[in-house]
């Protein structure tokens, strides 16, 4: 395996240093429950390609001013999709910024996904959350909290709750390399190990936290090695290799499900794009580095492997691209045409019931809206509806 396991059990430091460096080799195949079959690989590839194409369209829409913000998965598709592929439908995903593709793979439909990006009435979260922060209860994926790391105690808590109830549910909590600096990372790792919660922390080490490189986030020789001090297995894997990601995460999920406790999986990958639509990485990042990683594009590499293994062909690929693009473009057309959220939704879901003070505010708001002829153009740009 390409994985350099950093197990919790004692090992000589020289040995673990060597192990940490031995990370990105080719993956020898092996027949075990953590190896994907041909059809599964095609499913993984399809989901990787879908989010790549969708992200590209979203960035265009953002530049055209049709959506407000976007954070792509560009370059991290293998880490996102292949890790989530290791879960059952009943398992939970507590994501960071770049795991929307997992939601789509797990059955969340494109139109409401896009409506969330537009923030309109087709959005089941009612125009409240930024793009790249979707939530789908139906696919057990919650909305990311923008404070880095704060989702990790939730993942640990949801896993702890599953254990308490005797469910065999597993939770993946996603994070980036930057989140390993947060207090909540420490909290979640510590609690998860102390309570032996069935959670897998999947760190997408994409080398950059906006403009800060990973070596300025941590002086550890790897992120996976941090697991050791918490008393859980830590595994570093080539995050651009979908098969390797799947194998590592599936093994961790199986361990969690059988009562073996948490694992930290570090997927070494690369943020090929900007941090978000608000970022310009050419100001702080060497293009040669980007170009080097582009040669290891997870989608290009996986397609070549699938073709080499006889699961895929150039012709099928062309057809799939066309089909996905057609679906995406049709969904964009449908979603973008939906009207903005109704003003009445402003006051909903703050509490389970509408308390008196919000009933009063809603009545006052409606009266003011009526007096203003249906439009209260606020103090912010774009708030004219």
């Amino acid at each position: 395996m390409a994985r350099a396991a950093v197990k919790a059990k004692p090992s000589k430091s020289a040995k673990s240093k060597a192990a940490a460096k031995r990370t990105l080799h080719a993956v020898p195949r092996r027949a075990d429950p953590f190896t994907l079959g041909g059809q599964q690989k095609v499913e993984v590839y399809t989901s990787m390609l879908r989010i790549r194409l969708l992200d590209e369209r979203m960035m265009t829409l953002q530049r055209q001013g049709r959506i407000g913000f976007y954070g792509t998965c560009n370059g991290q598709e293998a880490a996102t999709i292949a890790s989530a592929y290791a879960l059952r439908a009943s398992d939970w995903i507590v994501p960071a910024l770049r795991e929307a593709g997992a939601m789509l793979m797990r059955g969340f439909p494109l139109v409401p996904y896009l409506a969330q990006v537009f923030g309109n009435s087709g959005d089941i979260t009612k125009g409240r959350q930024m793009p790249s922060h979707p939530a789908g209860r139906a696919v057990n994926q919650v909305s990311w909290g923008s404070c880095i790391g704060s989702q990790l105690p939730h993942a640990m808590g949801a896993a702890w709750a599953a254990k308490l109830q005797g469910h065999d549910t597993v939770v993946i909590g996603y994070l980036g390399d930057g989140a390993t600096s947060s207090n909540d990372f420490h909290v979640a790792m510590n609690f998860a190990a102390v309570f032996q919660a069935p959670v897998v922390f999947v760190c997408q080490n994409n080398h950059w936290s906006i403009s800060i490189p990973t070596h300025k986030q941590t002086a550890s020789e790897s992120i996976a090695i941090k697991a050791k001090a918490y008393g859980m297995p830590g595994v570093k894997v080539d995050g651009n290799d979908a098969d390797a990601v799947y194998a590592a995460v599936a093994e961790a999920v199986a361990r969690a499900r059988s009562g073996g406790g948490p694992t930290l999986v570090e997927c070494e990958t690369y943020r090929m794009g900007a941090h978000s639509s608000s970022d310009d990485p050419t100001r702080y990042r060497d293009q040669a580095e980007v170009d080097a990683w582009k040669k290891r594009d997870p989608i290009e590499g996986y397609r070549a492997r699938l073709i080499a293994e006889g699961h895929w062909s150039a012709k099928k690929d062309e057809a799939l691209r066309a089909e996905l693009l057609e679906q995406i473009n049709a969904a964009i057309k449908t979603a973008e045409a939906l009207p903005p959220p109704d003003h009445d939704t402003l006051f909903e879901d703050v509490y389970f019931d509408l308390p008196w003070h919000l009933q009063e505010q809603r009545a006052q708001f409606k009266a003011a809206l009526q007096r203003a002829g249906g439009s209260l153009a606020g103090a912010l740009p774009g708030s004219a509806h």
Partner: protein
Amino acid sequence: MELSYREALNQALAEEMERDGRVFLMGEEVARYNGAYKVSQGLLDRFGSARVVDAPISEAGFAGLGIGAAMTGLRPVIEMMTWNFAILALDQIMNNAAKIRHMSGGQLRCPIVIRGPSGAGGRLSSQHSQALEAQYAHVPGLKVVAAATPADAKGLLKSAIRDENPVMMFEAELLYGAKGEVPEGEHLVPIGKADIKRPGSQVTVLTWGRMLTACVLPAAEALAKEGIDVEVVDLRSLRPLDEETILASVNKTNRAVIVEEAWPFASVGASLVDLIQSKAFDALDAPVTRVNGLDINMAYAANLERATSPSVERIVEAVHHVLYR
């Protein structure tokens, strides 16, 4: 039956844990040690270590765990050793518990109770003595309650555990030993309902939490001896507020004094003044007057601590003020 405030809370926890298998208690020292203030006495023995859980020392940790558990179907009760330490969990409470239902468009819920002592604890100085309820009452999505008596402590905690929203419950270190009558059998106090603890006709005094018995009711008795009839309204719930009871009382007495342990600036009391001036302006015969803790950090020295908190004398003076005496 007569119970201490801590016994009343303990009964509430035991009854709700008995009633609903989804309820669990987690915090620092809650299990083996039976709680830093012994509120969870006996619960570990009764319900076991899966549901009465000693957590590693991280407020953000057990608050975050509770949020994750609440989102996926449990009913956590998270004990903060004091609300002063809950500051370490503010991101979890304000950015997460308060917003999860809203951010998810109502798909996810967060029925969590976070509870613990608030306010001065008796010579514990500034980092243990803050009354921070206004910070939580400021936040949409949270409910905030403060119990002043054993009966309300029991009834409010039971209601909080059954509530579908995150509820912050402010108790008081100096109240845990206080005794009072608690109704037999099932006793629920609705969240959002104030309670008139002493009916009166001349001046409304609004308060909550420890101030009620520490100085408001004694001040009312002292004033009664002067022939001044004070109505004492215990808010019990700070968010949502029982506006109806507050305004009915002020409309009756035409005078209001607010007694609050917390600092005066940007506080619950400040919001009450706004409520009264905007909705009962015509009823007022005097400016609304406030008695707060001094706008300073709490000292350790006993005399300085006493001087910092609202007192009977300051309340009597404020009531005289609104009566122009």
